[in-house]
C-alpha cells in the first residue's frame, strides 16, 4: 500500500522540484530545520543577554535617552552585593521558596500516594485537582486577593468560621506577619498538583513484582514504604523540586498581583524588586547587574542540583 502512495507522490511531484529537494543532503536539511529556532533564540534571548551584561557596567537610565551613559566598571555589582535591602529581598525569596516547596512536596506526595490506591473514579478527581496549575498566575493572584479581603473575603470567613475569630480581625495581605504566608498558601494551592502529578508518575513506574517480592520476604508495609516506595520516587520528586525551584525563584506575576511586594517590602521577592529598579526607578544599568546576578544564581544552583539529581538516578 505504501508502494502505491509513494508512486503517486513521486508521480505528482514536478521533476524540477524533485530534483531540487533530492539535491539537499540530510545534513543540509538538518541545518535548515534547526537554524530558524537557533536564530530566533539568539535574537530574542542571547543578544539581549549580552546587551544586559554590557549595560550592567554602565549607569544607563532608559528613561533618559539623550544622556550619554558612563562606564562605571563593577560598581553596580559592588553596590548590589553590599546593599542590605537586597539581602532582605533574598531572604523573602528564600522563605517563599523553602515553604512552598516544603508544603507542595508534602501534600503533593501524599495525594499521589492516595490516588495510587486506585480507588474508583481516581482519574476524574485527579483531573479536577490539576485545574489550578494551568491557570494564569496573575489572574489567580488577582482573585485570591478578593478571597483574602478582611470582612468580605471567603478565606477570612472560613478561617473565622472554624476558629471563632472575628473575620475582620486579621488581614492576610495587609499584615507584616501574615503576608509572607498568604503568598505561600496561594502558590501551594496552585502548584501542589504539579508535584502530585510527577510523584504519581513515579509511583506508577514501580513494578508490582518488587512489592510482591517484598511481601514474600515478609517485609512490613512500613519497611516497604521506606525501602521501595521512597527511593524509587525520589528522582521524580527531585525533578519536581527542580522545576518548582526555578519557577519560584523567578516568581513575579502571582505575587505582584496579590501583594505587590507589600506591606512594606515583606513580600518583595527579588523579581519584584528588580522590576522596581528597572521599570519604576529606571536605573537600567543597576537593574541589569541585578538581573545578571540573579541569572547566575539560578543557573549555578540548578546545575549543582542537576548533578545531585543525576547521582540519585544512577543509584
Amino acid at each position, binding site marked *: 500500500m*505504501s508502494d502505491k502512495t*509513494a508512486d503517486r507522490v*513521486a508521480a505528482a511531484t514536478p521533476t524540477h522540484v524533485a530534483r531540487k529537494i*533530492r539535491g*539537499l543532503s*540530510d545534513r543540509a536539511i*538538518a541545518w535548515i*530545520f*534547526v537554524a*530558524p*529556532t537557533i536564530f*530566533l*533564540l539568539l535574537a*530574542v*534571548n542571547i*543578544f539581549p*543577554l549580552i546587551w*544586559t551584561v554590557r*549595560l550592567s557596567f554602565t549607569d544607563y537610565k*532608559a528613561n533618559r535617552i539623550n544622556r550619554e551613559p558612563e562606564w562605571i566598571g563593577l560598581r553596580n555589582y559592588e553596590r548590589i552585593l553590599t546593599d542590605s535591602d537586597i539581602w532582605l529581598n533574598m531572604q523573602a525569596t528564600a522563605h517563599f521558596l523553602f515553604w512552598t516547596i516544603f508544603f507542595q512536596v508534602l501534600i503533593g506526595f501524599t*495525594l499521589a500516594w*492516595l*490516588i495510587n*490506591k486506585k480507588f*474508583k*473514579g481516581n482519574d476524574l*478527581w485527579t483531573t*479536577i*485537582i490539576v*485545574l*489550578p496549575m*494551568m*491557570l*494564569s498566575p*496573575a*489572574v489567580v493572584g*488577582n*482573585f485570591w486577593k478578593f478571597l483574602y479581603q478582611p*470582612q*468580605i473575603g*471567603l478565606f477570612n*470567613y472560613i478561617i473565622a468560621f472554624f476558629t471563632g475569630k472575628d473575620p475582620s480581625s486579621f488581614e492576610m495581605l495587609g499584615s507584616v506577619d501574615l503576608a509572607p504566608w498568604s503568598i505561600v498558601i496561594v502558590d501551594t494551592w496552585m502548584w501542589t498538583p504539579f508535584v502530585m*502529578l*510527577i510523584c504519581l508518575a513515579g509511583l506508577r513506574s514501580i513494578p*508490582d513484582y518488587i512489592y510482591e517480592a517484598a511481601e514474600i520476604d515478609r517485609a512490613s508495609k512500613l519497611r516497604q514504604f521506606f525501602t521501595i516506595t521512597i527511593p524509587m520516587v525520589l528522582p521524580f520528586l527531585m*525533578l519536581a523540586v527542580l522545576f518548582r525551584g*526555578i519557577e519560584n*525563584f*523567578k516568581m*513575579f*506575576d502571582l505575587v505582584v*498581583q496579590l501583594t505587590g511586594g507589600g506591606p512594606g517590602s515583606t513580600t518583595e521577592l527579588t*523579581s519584584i524588586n*528588580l*522590576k522596581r529598579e*528597572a*521599570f519604576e526607578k529606571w536605573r537600567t544599568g543597576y*537593574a541589569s547587574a541585578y*538581573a545578571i546576578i540573579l*541569572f547566575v544564581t539560578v543557573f549555578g544552583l540548578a546545575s549543582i542540583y542537576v548533578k545531585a539529581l543525576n547521582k540519585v538516578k544512577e543509584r
Partner: protein
Amino acid sequence: MSSFSITEPSNRTKWFAGTLVIAYALITMMPLVWIGLTGFKSPADAISYPPKYIIGSDSEAGFQPTLEGYVNLFTTRTRQTEEFLANNPPKNWADEIVRQYDMVIVGPSKFGERFLNSVIIGFGSTFLSVFLGTLAAYAFSRFKIPLADDLLFFILSTRMMPPIAVAIPIFLMYRNLGLSDTHLGMILLYTAVNISLAVWLLKGFIDEIPREYEEAALIDGYTRFQAFYKVVLPQAATGIASTAIFCLIFAWNEYAFAVLLTTANAQTAPPFIPTIIGIGGLDWPAIAAGVTIFVLPVMIFTILLRKHLLRGITFGAVRK
C-alpha cells in the same frame, strides 16, 4: 486477575484514600467555584457579610443571580439625569440592568479588545513556535547534529532567565525597532519563550515514532521532505496538537512581558482584568466575570489534554 494480587489495596484502604482525595479536590475547587458565583452577583451581594452562596434563594445566604457583572465587563457606562432616563426608555436587557444605578450604556469596554489581543498573540505565537519547533525537533531526533546535547540544553536554559531580566534589553531593543506595544513584537517574544518547550516536547514525541517507517518510505522513493511530511507529521499529529495547546496556554496566561512591554494597542487580557473599576473601588463581579471568561477555555483544554499533561509540564522529562 488483579483483585487477587497481594499488592492490590484492600477495599477499606481504597475507600479511605478516595474520601481524602475527594475532600482535597472539593476544597481546592472552592476558590474557582466562588469566582464563578461572584460573576453572577450584584456588587452589593459580592461583598456582603456573611457571604451569600445559594443561587436564587431569598434566605440570608441566598442571592438573586444577575448578569450585571458581565454587562459591566463588556460596556462603559455613564450616570444620567432622571429627566434623560425618563425620556429615553432602555434599548435592551443590558441597558435595563444598568438603569437601576441611573446609568446608561455608552459603548463597549476595552475588555473585548484585550481579549482579542490575547487570541491573536496566543494563536500567532503558538503557530510559529509549533512550526519552528517541529522542524527543529525532527532534525534533533533524526540527524546527527554536532553538539546536539549542548544546543538542546542551550534551548532549555533560555527558560531559566527571570522574565524581568529578559524584559530590560527587550524593552530597549523593541523601542529601537518600533516593536513596542505591537502584536508582532509580542508574538515573536512569546514564540522565543515557547520554542524551548516545543522543541523538547516534540523531540520526545518524534523519538517515539519508529525510524523504520521513514526508512521504508525513503526506500520507496520518497525524498527526505516527503518522508517528513507524509510519514512523520501524520504520526506526530497528537504530539503536535498537545504541544500546541501547551504553547497556547502559556501565551494566554503570560503576564510579566505583557504588563512591561505593552500599554494599549497590543495589551492582552491578564494585565487588564485586575484593573476593572466600578463604583467606589474595584468592580468585583465584573472582575470575576472577566476571570471566568478568561479561565474557562484553559480549563476545557486542560481536560482535553489530561493524558499528556505530565509530559507538557515537565518539558517531556517525565512520560507516562
